[in-house]
């Protein structure tokens, strides 16, 4: 078709709408694609070995098991967007998991109040991080490394040995073992994220992550935004701790430790840039599910257990390199 000379400059200025969306969400789309691929591989391996497709049990246990990580990854995303990083995830989950195992009991009202207080405790932990990073102008990695140990210590104080109990009704409300109803909570979290993304706070988060100086010059209150980001993250880690306790039906003040690293892994797999300002919590949720699917795939591949972590690391590197390449390719189309 011969080009219309008048429309040409416009076409150069603006990319087609589809390409624009693709460019803006390359991380998220890639994460979703990797997740889909891993689900297909897993389902294929499962079907070959078991003569049936993964059923209710497999889907439900995968979802329930991933819930704490998915929630922690959303919190981590919010912090990472501000060019921060939060290593205290493990400590906050330890602490809130311990609190949940001890105090969740009694009437429904009592359990609701306790749950809210635990979320507040998580938010308070996040607030401490936020104040030290925001007002104290300290490096996030140092601050949260220190608070990680503090929260871990507090958690052991609260629950010196694994124990406590979560009422069965509470467990089946949060993580029903027969149907993947926990997905509803995840959908709510994703909706919350979309709301946040469009709010003034959300815009500020992205702004200070992209270019703090420019954002401040434009009147963004960087300190306040950072403090709020860490606080929301803390509250989300608390919800993760509650889900962890519900899943296990009891508490252990050390089971949260692993989430510090895995939440960062999920965030990276989810296409969130560790340099800040770019990414989506929905991507991080996909990232969380990818890490679980990798465990599932390695399980059914019957890899020698000694090499399991080797392959986990390998998949991670491949996914990240692959993601980076595609992202660059899409952006270079500008």
């Amino acid at each position, binding site marked *: 078709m011969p080009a219309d000379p008048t429309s040409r400059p416009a076409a150069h200025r603006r990319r087609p709408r589809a390409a624009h969306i693709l460019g803006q969400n390359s991380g998220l789309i890639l994460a979703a694609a990797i997740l889909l691929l891993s689900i297909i591989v897993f389902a294929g391996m*499962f*079907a070959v*070995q*078991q*003569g*049936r*497709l*993964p059923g209710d*049990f*497999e889907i439900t*246990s*995968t979802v*329930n*098991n*991933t819930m*704490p*990580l998915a929630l922690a990854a959303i919190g981590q995303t919010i912090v990472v967007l501000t060019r921060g990083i939060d290593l205290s995830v493990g400590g906050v989950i330890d602490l809130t998991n311990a609190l949940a*195992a001890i105090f969740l009991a009694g009437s429904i009202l009592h359990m609701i109040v306790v749950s809210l207080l635990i979320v507040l405790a998580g938010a308070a932990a996040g607030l401490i991080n936020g104040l030290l990073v925001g007002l104290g102008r300290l490096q996030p990695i140092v601050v949260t490394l220190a608070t990680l140990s503090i929260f871990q210590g507090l958690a*052991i104080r609260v629950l*010196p*040995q*694994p*124990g*406590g109990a979560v009422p069965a009704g509470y*467990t089946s409300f949060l*993580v029903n*073992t027969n149907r993947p109803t926990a997905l509803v909570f995840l959908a709510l979290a994703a909706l919350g994220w979309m709301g946040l993304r469009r709010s003034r706070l959300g815009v500020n988060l992205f702004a200070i992550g992209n270019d703090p100086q420019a954002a401040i010059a434009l009147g963004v209150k960087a300190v306040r935004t950072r403090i709020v980001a860490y606080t929301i993250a803390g509250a989300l880690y608390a919800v993760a701790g509650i889900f*962890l306790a519900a*899943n*296990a*039906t*009891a*508490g*252990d*003040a*050390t*089971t949260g430790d*692993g989430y510090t690293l*895995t939440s960062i892994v999920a965030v990276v797999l989810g296409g969130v840039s560790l340099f800040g300002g770019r990414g989506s919590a929905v991507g991080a949720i996909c990232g969380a599910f990818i890490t*679980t699917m990798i*465990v*599932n795939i390695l*399980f*059914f591949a*019957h890899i020698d*257990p*000694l090499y*399991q*972590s080797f392959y986990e690391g390998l998949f991670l590197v491949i996914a990240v390199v692959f993601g980076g390449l595609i992202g660059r390719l899409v952006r270079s189309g500008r």
Partner: protein
Amino acid sequence: MTGAIARRTLLAASGTGLLAAALPHQAGAADRKLKIALSNSYIGNKWRIEMENLFKAALQMEPYKSQVEGTWFNSGNNVSQESQQISGLIGERVDAILVDAASPTGLNGILQQANARGILVVSYDNVVTTPAAIKVNTDQFAFGKKLAEFLVQKMHGKGNVIMVTGVPGTFVDQQRNAGADAVWKQHPDIKVVNRYTGMWDSSTAERNTASILPSLPKIDGIWCQGGTDGVLKAFIAAKRTPLPPTAGEAENGFRKFMTGYMGEKVDGLSIGQPPYLVLVALELARRILQKSYPRKDITIPFPFVTTGTVKTGETVFPHLPDSFFADFTDSGPDATVKICVDAALKGTPCPGHLHVRLPKA
């Protein structure tokens, strides 16, 4: 007939038929091997490696070779990963799962689901709290108590003791410390002058001891949950010799000191949490599945040696590393299990039958 088969294949291929999946299961029920899987939380220390090697060796020895089809998984001490692997085992419909858990409580949810689906769950070493699992273990409270009583006797009820504890937040650590504290309480002249963690690891125990030792008075007894050889090396490095009476774990290095090592000889008691707990768990699972043993928890006695009873080539191995756990096999006439050193080192089978003695049913 052929039509029925074709339909069955079709069903299986479409992956929908519960029926199709259940068929091969039932067909060989009488003569098929028992599917027993090992879910191990952590493979980062020598103890766990020996434990898993013993399991691999046993699978290649009778009676397990012809009766059991075994698999094993590690999860990097990550609860959610171990939980996910166990759900994989449930999906595979194994007959029994042996669990050395990453957390005493963290797996309760998934193990209850396994049990509800008719899978036998045997938990050992780092046991879980849910009643859905049968437990195989030693008495950790007695462990700490026995170590402490040995020191009380050697010190004539008087003097300074240090306690090198284990990984905080674990049930085992808590129980062993409580066992020791119960003994100290009865002997007020024994002073615990310091208590710090060795993380059940020789190099950590050595490092922590080296940094704390200069601030301590004369030590008359060492109570150590793990990393005992490291503690003694730190004492030697600080020239705190001769070494005080020591009650510790079953590290080969510690036992070397009991027979004379690095120019020192220590009067000691060495008790081990035996890696062969996995074999007891395996035997228990086999017997319960074959309905020749009741479903019940088992506590097995500790293997232990003193400076008087330690034997080169049997309970201490001069040519093996210090960090090797020398209690991979039991000894004596009432031994729970006797197995050769190659099984623990390489996971290769030993000649002959493997006989695991379970307590009287």
